């Protein structure tokens, strides 16, 4: 039984936010996403944290803002919460510009990275804080708090102060507190960063179930791509204040929009080269490190001739003599010959580093599907690394 089962789904009656977003013009609300960010910029001194960024997020989405530290993802989140004011651009919630709405009047709640629990208040009063401010009657507050406590499995801890709780329990209090007001949008700033790996993974699943169950819009900021891929429906990858790509986790991984995204999300082998021929939905790219590589034509036609060919390690296969299926599929198979230099056993898979004859080093990840796998390679062994045209992506440079 998931923790979301405890949540009753009646409409939020008493914990209403102070701003009624449904009061927005009807025609605007019809074709408007729940949240629209339009050309928003924010500069700190000479540092442009967010640079003319636009993004639509629909109701009920679980959206992740992913990027390296300093990419502006937290600044963007803080602008949604109202802690920072955009220098330019607009943020529309339900079709209404929320720029003039003060943070304490926004129908948005935030879960802070350090949880920001009030140290002088116990668990119950922390969770009830937002409800009291909303003017909820006492009996309703008690009901809601009990519901939240059950939701995050903190029964019996109501009287404890934050410093009497473990990290995982504090995280749950912070979550309950931010959910208690039933916000239209819940903002989560690196919510799991302080938890250990096992707890983080189970909490990821609980958050997903909770979000699906409540039908709330979650926007999470994270630097952990696995976390973003696991939880989110859509991911916005940010770098230097801009969105590099907004896509589903699968598209982000299998069809990265740029070389930067390909390298940031997951592991990748890159071959730089020039397009030499283009026929039958196949491009041939002459690369320095991998010779002529045949690739499938991308969805968006390549306009430049200078490109990079990206191939994920798990799609780069190894064999002793090269694939025998060559003739069967009648597919052009890209073959790269080299010598295994490093073997990294990871349990579920093994990563091989292969030094190609051209001198370049590629990585191949092979799943260990059988316990007594005999088909392994050792350092110093000569191998053929091969991949299909459909398994690689062409990226313009």
């Amino acid at each position: 039984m998931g923790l979301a089962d405890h949540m009753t789904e009646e409409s939020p009656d008493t914990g209403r936010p102070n701003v009624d977003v449904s009061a927005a013009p009807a025609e605007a609300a019809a074709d408007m996403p729940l949240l629209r960010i339009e050309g928003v910029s924010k500069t700190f001194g000479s540092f442009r944290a967010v640079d003319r960024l636009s993004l639509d997020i629909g109701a009920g989405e679980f959206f992740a803002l992913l990027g390296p530290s300093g990419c502006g993802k937290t600044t963007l989140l803080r602008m949604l919460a109202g802690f920072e004011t955009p220098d330019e651009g607009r943020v529309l919630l339900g079709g209404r510009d929320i720029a003039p709405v003060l943070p304490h009047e926004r129908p948005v709640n935030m879960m802070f990275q350090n949880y920001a629990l009030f140290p002088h208040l116990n668990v119950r009063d922390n969770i009830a804080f937002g409800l009291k401010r909303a003017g909820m009657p006492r009996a309703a507050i008690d009901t809601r708090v009990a519901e939240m406590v059950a939701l995050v499995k903190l029964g019996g801890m109501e009287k404890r102060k934050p410093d009497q709780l473990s990290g995982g329990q504090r995280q749950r209090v912070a979550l309950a507190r931010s959910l208690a007001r039933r916000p239209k949008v819940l903002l989560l700033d690196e919510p799991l960063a302080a938890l250990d790996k096992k707890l983080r993974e189970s909490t990821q699943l609980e958050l997903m179930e909770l979000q699906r169950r409540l039908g709330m819009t979650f926007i999470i900021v994270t630097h952990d791509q696995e976390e973003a891929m696991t939880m989110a429906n859509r991911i916005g990858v940010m770098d230097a204040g801009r969105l590099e790509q907004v896509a589903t986790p699968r598209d982000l991984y299998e069809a990265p929009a740029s070389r930067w995204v390909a390298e940031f999300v997951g592991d990748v082998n890159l071959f730089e080269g020039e397009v030499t021929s283009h026929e039958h939905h196949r491009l041939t790219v002459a690369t320095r490190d991998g010779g002529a590589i045949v690739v499938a034509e991308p969805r968006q036609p390549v306009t430049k001739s200078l490109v990079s060919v990206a191939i994920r390690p798990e799609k780069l296969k190894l064999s002793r003599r090269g694939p025998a299926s060559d003739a069967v599929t009648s597919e052009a198979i890209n073959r790269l010959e080299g010598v295994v230099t490093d073997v990294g056993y990871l349990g579920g898979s093994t990563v091989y580093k292969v030094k190609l004859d051209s001198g370049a080093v590629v990585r191949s990840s092979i799943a260990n599907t059988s316990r007594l796998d005999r088909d392994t390679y050792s350092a110093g062994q000569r191998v053929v690394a091969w991949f299909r045209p459909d398994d690689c992506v062409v990226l313009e440079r």
Partner: protein
Amino acid sequence: MSARRIFAQPARYAAIAPYLWMVLFFLVPFGFVLKISLSQTAIAQPPYVPLFDFSEGWAAIKAAFAQLSLDNFKLLVSDSLYISSYLRSLVVAVTSTLILLLIGYPIAYGMARLPQRWQAIAMMLVIVPFWTSFLIRIYAWINILQHDGLLNKVLLALHLVSTPVVWLSTDTAMYIGIVYSYLPFMILPLYATLARMESSLLEAASDLGASPLRSFWLVTFPLSLPGVGAGALLCFIPIVGEFVIPDLLAGSSSMMIGQTLWLEFFTNKDWPVAAAAAVALLVLLVPPLLLYDRLQRRTLGGAN
């Protein structure tokens, strides 16, 4: 393990230092004062009897012990001079501490909100007056508050008053002097607590629907209470025993206990009564100290 070895022994000795300090400079002198407070005044050198003379043997010491009495303490309770001095000291200390809190809190709050760079400068400005002798600063106030002093000149120039106001030798002057002198002791602990507070707590309060004013009362203020306690105590205790400021700035109609003590000791040469007054003062100050200790334990020891 080796690190533990290296540090264990010196650490153990270092722990003795504060106790040694307390015994040498507090308990032993307090013993002397207590003994004098139980003695009788005499025209002699030193001006009280009995004296413990260890050279005259056990019987003499026993006889001396028999002479000790609580007479001086009975006098303190029966004579309204002492009771009114104690009461005045308490009233002055409580009033001053409240004024200090009202002035010091906004200053400390403002300091804690300054950009980091400016905080150090503000801190310097608070401490700078200490570079001048305390006595000189009080004399400077006499200068400012006297009949043709700076304050009256400014008031007259601004036509706020038509004749010079009598400031000196009034309670107002004394409060000005006390508040001026003790303000840093109020500001610094308050500032330390407020500056340490995480700004994300206020953001969380705001996020959960609290207006800035409510955030202050519901989050900032309760979390600053340890600082309020420390500041109040740091001011209250020395103000109760304050002697110089009321002596120089206040009128002579009523005295604080510090002044009474001085009078007994130097003018009346009644060391035993002065000592009894000092012991009684100390006993009076113990309850607030214990209260503070308990409050601090409660805020610090939430984890137990």
